C-alpha cells in the first residue's frame, strides 16, 4: 500500500516535527514496514506553472507555434508543437535543467527561433500513459511557482507492507494512528455526528438475507451531482498511490478507501431496477457481467448485491457493468458495507479476482467505518462541487458488542519481555493506540476499541502492543544457556553427515532436486511397472504437470541433472543426492504417505581425461561398485555386501541388481537401460545406484571393537586358472574361501583375460591369495597343500584348470 506524507499530515498534528525518513524508520521499527520511501518532487525540478500570453505560427515550420509565456517574473519565448491551447491557459513549463524522461531541457533554437523551455504534456510529466497535446491546468495556481508543489506532486510516498492482522492499517488514518502512538503527536480522527440521519425515511430499502455474511450495509444517495472533474490535488495524490483517475465519483470512492480503509462502491442509482437493495447469496448458475467486461457464473457461496431483478455486484470484489457509473450518471447510490472476510477470500480465490476492496474485507475490517466513509464522501463531494445533499443514511447491521475488556498484568509483561516497563508508560502506549485503559493494582484494565476488535483478543496481544511501541531495540538482550543436558546430533543425523562427507571426499558432487516430478517422467522410466516404485503420491493442485507427483526414487532427478549438465557441455558427472522419497500408504492405518530417505549416486562419462602421464578412462559399472564397497567397508562390513541379479525395467537387463546386506535388500544398482538413455539423447553409459539410507544407517556398526594386529607374517601365492566364462567371480571366490580354511585371510583378483591363447568360451582368472595364522608362522608346505586342494575342487566343480 502506498500513502503520502502530505496525506498523513491531515491526520497527525505537527507531523512536520518529524522528517519523512524519520517517520518511515519509526513505522518500520514498530511493525509497519516501510518498504520504500520516495520523494516525488525531484522528477519535477525546474518545472513551473506558466500562462500562455499569446502565440503565433512559427515562421519556418507549419506545425510549430511561437508562444509568449508568462512565468510571473518575466515573459519567455517558447516554441511548441501542440495546438490544444489558447491564450490565458495555464501550463506546466519545463525550464532549462528540467528532466523529461531521459531528456534534459536546454535553451535552444528550433528552426531558427529561440525557445527557453518546453510546455509539457501529461505523458511527458508521467501523469498518464498516453496524452494528446500539452497539459492545460484548471484552477487557481500561482505563476512561476513549482508545478509539483502546486498540483500536489511534491510529496513523499511511503510504500508500506501491512501485516494481515492489521487491516485497520490499510488506510491513511490507521497509519496516522500508529504514528501518533510512536511519536506522541496528536491523532486527528474523522468524526461525524450523524445519528439523526440514519434511516429517517424509507424511500430506499436495504435487506440483508444473512447478517453473518454481511454484518453491515450502509448507503447514501447523492442526487444531481454536477459534472465536475476531479481536482488536480486529488487526482495526483491518487496517482502517487498507484491509482489512476477515472471520474470524480469513482476517484472519491478510491480516495476514501485509501484514507479510511473502507471500500465503497458507487452504483448509478437510475440503473438499479428497484428502490431496494438485497444482500444475498447467489443462486446456482446465476451470472453477472462485471465492470472489467468478464461474465462470471456464480455459485451459492458467493455474496451478491442485487436489486429486485438481478445481481448488480459481487459483494466486496467487483461491481457489475450494468449499473456502473458513466458519463451520464447524475444520481449515485453509494454502498459502504462490511462483508464477512472468509467468504470474500473464498470467492476472490475462486474467481481469481483480487482487488483493493477484497483485500481489505478478507482481513475483517471494522464495521463502524461504513458511516464514517459515507460522511467523508459527502464532505469531500461538497467541498469539490459546492453542492449540499439530503441528510439521509440508510443503514442495516448486525448489532453486536465490539468492545472488549482485557486485563494486562504487569507480571505478564515482565515474564514475556524480560524487563519491567513503567506502569504509566505502558498505560500511555495503549492510550495512544486508541485503547482506553486504567491502571489497577498490578494490572491494566484495557478496553479494546472496535477497530482493533479482531486482533486484540488476549492479554498476550496487549503485551505485543506494549513491546512494539516501546521498541524491540529498547529491550536488552539476555544470555540464554540451554538447560537441557547438552547439544547433540542423533545417531542417524551424525551418520548421514558422515556419509555425505565421505561422498564429498570421494569426489562426488551433491545435488538437491525438487521432490516432485511429472507423471510422464515416471512412466518413461517404467516405474509404474515396478512393484517397489509404483505407489506414488499425487499432488491434487500441482503447479503444472512437471510437478505432478512425489518421487518414489531419485532416479529421474539424477538422470535429469546429467542431461542438463550435458547440455551445458559438462559430460563427466559423479553426483549424489540424499533426499526423501514418498510412497502411498496402502495399509490404511496411517493417512500420511511413507517417507524414506534415499542415497542415490550417478556416474557417467569419463573417469579421467587423457593426461601426459595417464590415459583416458570411461566410468564403468565397477567404479560405482567400488564406491559401494567402500561405503560398506567404511560403515557396515565389506564382506556383507552381495549383489543379486534382479531385473529392473529401467536398467540394462544384464546389469541390474539388488544390493543386499546380509541377505536383506538395501538398494539397487545397475546401468541405466541403453534404450532409455538413447531416447533422452544421452550418448554415454549411465550408472546408478540407490540405497535405503535409513536402513543402511540402522545396520551400520555402532559398537566398534579393536581387533588384534596380526603378529605373524603372511604368505602370498598366485593362482591363475582357466575356467568356463559363465562361471562368475563370486562363485570362484566362494569356492576358494570354502577350501582355503581359516588361514586364508585375503583374496584378490588381479587379472581377468579372454582372447588369444585362451580357448573360446573360457576365461583366465588370476588371484592372489594371502595366508596367515594368528598363532604361528605358516610353513610353505602347509600353504602348498591348501592351494592344491583349492585347485582340485575348482576343477571338480567348474572344470577349471591351472593356467600354464
Amino acid at each position: 500500500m502506498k500513502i503520502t506524507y502530505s496525506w498523513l499530515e491531515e491526520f497527525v498534528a505537527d507531523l512536520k516535527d518529524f522528517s519523512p525518513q524519520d517517520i518511515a524508520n519509526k513505522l518500520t521499527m514498530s511493525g509497519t514496514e516501510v518498504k520504500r520511501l520516495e520523494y516525488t518532487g525531484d522528477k519535477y525540478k525546474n518545472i513551473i506553472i506558466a500562462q500562455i500570453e499569446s502565440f503565433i505560427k512559427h515562421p519556418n515550420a507549419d506545425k510549430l507555434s511561437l508562444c509568449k509565456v508568462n512565468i510571473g517574473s518575466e515573459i519567455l519565448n517558447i516554441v511548441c508543437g501542440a495546438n490544444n491551447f489558447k491564450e490565458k491557459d495555464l501550463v506546466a513549463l519545463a525550464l532549462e535543467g528540467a528532466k523529461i524522461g531521459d531528456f534534459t531541457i536546454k535553451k535552444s533554437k528550433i528552426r531558427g527561433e529561440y525557445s527557453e523551455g518546453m510546455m509539457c504534456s501529461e505523458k511527458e510529466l508521467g501523469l498518464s500513459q498516453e496524452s494528446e497535446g500539452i497539459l492545460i491546468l484548471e484552477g487557481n495556481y500561482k505563476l512561476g511557482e513549482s508545478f509539483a508543489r502546486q498540483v500536489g506532486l511534491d510529496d513523499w510516498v511511503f510504500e508500506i507492507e501491512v501485516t494481515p492482522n492489521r487491516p485497520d492499517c490499510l488506510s491513511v488514518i490507521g497509519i496516522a494512528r500508529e504514528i501518533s502512538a510512536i511519536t506522541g503527536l496528536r491523532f486527528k480522527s474523522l468524526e461525524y455526528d450523524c445519528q439523526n440521519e440514519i434511516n429517517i425515511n424509507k424511500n430506499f430499502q436495504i435487506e440483508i438475507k444473512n447478517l453473518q455474511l454481511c454484518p453491515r450495509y450502509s448507503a447514501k444517495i447523492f442526487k444531481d451531482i454536477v459534472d465536475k472533474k476531479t481536482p488536480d490535488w486529488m487526482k495526483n495524490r491518487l496517482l502517487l498511490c498507484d491509482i489512476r483517475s477515472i471520474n470524480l465519483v469513482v476517484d472519491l470512492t478510491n480516495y476514501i478507501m485509501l484514507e479510511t480503509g473502507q471500500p465503497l462502491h458507487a452504483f448509478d442509482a437510475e440503473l438499479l431496477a428497484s428502490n431496494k437493495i438485497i444482500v444475498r447469496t447467489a443462486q446456482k448458475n446465476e451470472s453477472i457481467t462485471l465492470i472489467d467486461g468478464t461474465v462470471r457464473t456464480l455459485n451459492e457461496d458467493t455474496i451478491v448485491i442485487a436489486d429486485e431483478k438481478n445481481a448488480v455486484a459481487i459483494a466486496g470484489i467487483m461491481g457489475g457493468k450494468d449499473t456502473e457509473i458513466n458519463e451520464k450518471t447524475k444520481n449515485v447510490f453509494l454502498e459502504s458495507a462490511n462483508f464477512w472476510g472468509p467468504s470474500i477470500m473464498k470467492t476472490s480465490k475462486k474467481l481469481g479476482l483480487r482487488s483493493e476492496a477484497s483485500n481489505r474485507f478478507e482481513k475483517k475490517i471494522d464495521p463502524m467505518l461504513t458511516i464514517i466513509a459515507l460522511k467523508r464522501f459527502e464532505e469531500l463531494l461538497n467541498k469539490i462541487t459546492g453542492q449540499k445533499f439530503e441528510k439521509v443514511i440508510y443503514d442495516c447491521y448486525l448489532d453486536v458488542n465490539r468492545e472488549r475488556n482485557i486485563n494486562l498484568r504487569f507480571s505478564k509483561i515482565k515474564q514475556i519481555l524480560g524487563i519491567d516497563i513503567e506502569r504509566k508508560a505502558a498505560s500511555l502506549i495503549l492510550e495512544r493506540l486508541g485503547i482506553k485503559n486504567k491502571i489497577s493494582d498490578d494490572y491494566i484494565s484495557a478496553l479494546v476499541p472496535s477497530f482493533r476488535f479482531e486482533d486484540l483478543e488476549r492479554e498476550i496481544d496487549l503485551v505485543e502492543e506494549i513491546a512494539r511501541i516501546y521498541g524491540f531495540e529498547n529491550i536488552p538482550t539476555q544470555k540464554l544457556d540451554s538447560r537441557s543436558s547438552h547439544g547433540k546430533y542423533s545417531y542417524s543425523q551424525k551418520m548421514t553427515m558422515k556419509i555425505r562427507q565421505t561422498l564429498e571426499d570421494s569426489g562426488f558432487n551433491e545435488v538437491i532436486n525438487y521432490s516432485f516430478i511429472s507423471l510422464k517422467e515416471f512412466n518413461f522410466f517404467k516405474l509404474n511397472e515396478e512393484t517397489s516404485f509404483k505407489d506414488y503420491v499425487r499432488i491434487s493442485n500441482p503447479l503444472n504437470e512437471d510437478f505432478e507427483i512425489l518421487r518414489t526414487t531419485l532416479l529421474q532427478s539424477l538422470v535429469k541433472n546429467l542431461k542438463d549438465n550435458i547440455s551445458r557441455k559438462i559430460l563427466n558427472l559423479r553426483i549424489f543426492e540424499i533426499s526423501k522419497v514418498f510412497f502411498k500408504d496402502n495399509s490404511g492405518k496411517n493417512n500420511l504417505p511413507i517417507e524414506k530417505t534415499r542415497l542415490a549416486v550417478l556416474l557417467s562419462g569419463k573417469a579421467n581425461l587423457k593426461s601426459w602421464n595417464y590415459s583416458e578412462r570411461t566410468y564403468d559399472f565397477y567404479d560405482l561398485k567400488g564406491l559401494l564397497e567402500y561405503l560398506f567397508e567404511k560403515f557396515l562390513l565389506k564382506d556383507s555386501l552381495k549383489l543379486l541379479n534382479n531385473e529392473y525395467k529401467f536398467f540394462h537387463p544384464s546389469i541390474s541388481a539388488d544390493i543386499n546386506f546380509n541377505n536383506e535388500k538395501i538398494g539397487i544398482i545397475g546401468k541405466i537401460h541403453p534404450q532409455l538413455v538413447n531416447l533422452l539423447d544421452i550418448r554415454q553409459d549411465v550408472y546408478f545406484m540407490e540405497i535405503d539410507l535409513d536402513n543402511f544407517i540402522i545396520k551400520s556398526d555402532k559398537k566398534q571393537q579393536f581387533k588384534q594386529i596380526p603378529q605373524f607374517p603372511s604368505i602370498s601365492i598366485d593362482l591363475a586358472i582357466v575356467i568356463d566364462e559363465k562361471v562368475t567371480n563370486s562363485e570362484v571366490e566362494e569356492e576358494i574361501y570354502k577350501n582355503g580354511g581359516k588361514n586364508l585371510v585375503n583374496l584378490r583378483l588381479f587379472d581377468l583375460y579372454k582372447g588369444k591363447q585362451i580357448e573360446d568360451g573360457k576365461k583366465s582368472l588370476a588371484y592372489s591369495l594371502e595366508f596367515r595364522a594368528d598363532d604361528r608362522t605358516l610353513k610353505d608346505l602347509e600353504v602348498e597343500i591348501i592351494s592344491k586342494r583349492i585347485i582340485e575342487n575348482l576343477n571338480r566343480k567348474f572344470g577349471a584348470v591351472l593356467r600354464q
Partner: protein
Amino acid sequence: MEEKINLLKQDLNKTFENFTNDKKEVKSLNELDLLESKYLGKKSLIAQTLKNINEFPHEVKPFVGKTVNEVRNKIENEIKNLRDELNLIEFDRKLREEKFDLTLPGRLLPLGSKNIINKVIEEIQEIFIGLGYEIAEGPEVETDYYNFEALNHPPDHPARSLHDTFFIDDKILLRTHTSPVQIRYMEKNKPPVYIIAPGKVYRKDYDVTHTPMFTQIEGLAVDNNINFGNLKWTLETLAHSFFGKDRKVRFRPHYFPFTEPSAEVDVSCNICGGKGCRVCSGTGWLEILGAGMVDPNLYKYVNYNPDEVTGFAFGMGIERMAMLKYGIDDLRLFFENDIRFLRQF
C-alpha cells in the same frame, strides 16, 4: 741413533704439516687420489720408512713403527673424511643436474562438494549444538492439523493465504514451513525444549524469487522464564557466528500467527555496510528470519502450562542465508544443479 730417530720425527711432522697444507687445496676426488698417493703411496716417506724399517735397530723398530703408523692413521683418517665430504658434494651435484619439471600437472583427484544448502544447514546446526540444542525432524508431507491448525492458523485464517499450499487431499499437504516439527516435538517431549529443525518445505509459487520447494531451519526453545531478551541474544549470537561479529542485528515487530510478540530480524547489509545499496533496496538492512515468543495458544495443543513455561521460536530460509553469506544472486541456481555451481562449495 737417537739423532736418526729425531730426524725421522721431524720429517714425519713436516710431512703431516705438508699434508695439512696440501689438503686445503684439494677440491675434487681426483686431487684427493693424488694427495693420497703422495703421502701414502709407495714413494711416500711413510711407505718408504715402513718398507725400510729394518734399517733401524731391533729395539727401536716397534717405536719407529708406532710413530710412523700414528701419522699414517691420522692422514688416512683425514683422507677418508675428506672423501666422504667430496662424495656428498659430488652426489649433490648430480642431483642438481637432474632436470625435473615441477610445473607439469599432478594426477587429479576428483573434487567433490557438499551441496551449499546442506553446508549452510551444517554451519547453523554447529552454532546451535554449541548452545545446547538438539536437531529434530518431521515429515515433509503433513496434516493440516500440524501445518496450520495447531500453529494457530484455524481454517479461514487470512494468514493461510500467505502460504500457497500443495495439497494431497483435504487434510494432507506438503508442509509449507518447518514449524509443524515444533508441535510434533512438544507433543512427545516435556520442557525444557531446545531444538532446531532443518528441512524442505513447499509452497505453490514459482518465479524469479520463489521456488516451489525450498529449505528452512526452525528453532524452538521452551523453558521456565524464557523471555524476549533471550530470543534477541540467541539470534544475535546466530547472526554474529554465521555472518561475522561486525554485522549489526535489528529486530522489527512483525506478525506471525504462532508467535507473539513476533519479529523479523535483519542484519546490516555487508555490500554497502549499512549505507543502502541495490542489494538491500537502499535500506541498509537484509532480512534474514522471522521469530517471536511462542503464542500461548500453542501450548494448549501440546499440554504445556502457559503460566509455567514460555518460549521462543524462529525460522529462516536456508537459501536466503546462503545467498547473503556467499553472494549468490539467483535463487534458481540452487535447484538447477549445474556442476559449475555445485563445485564452488
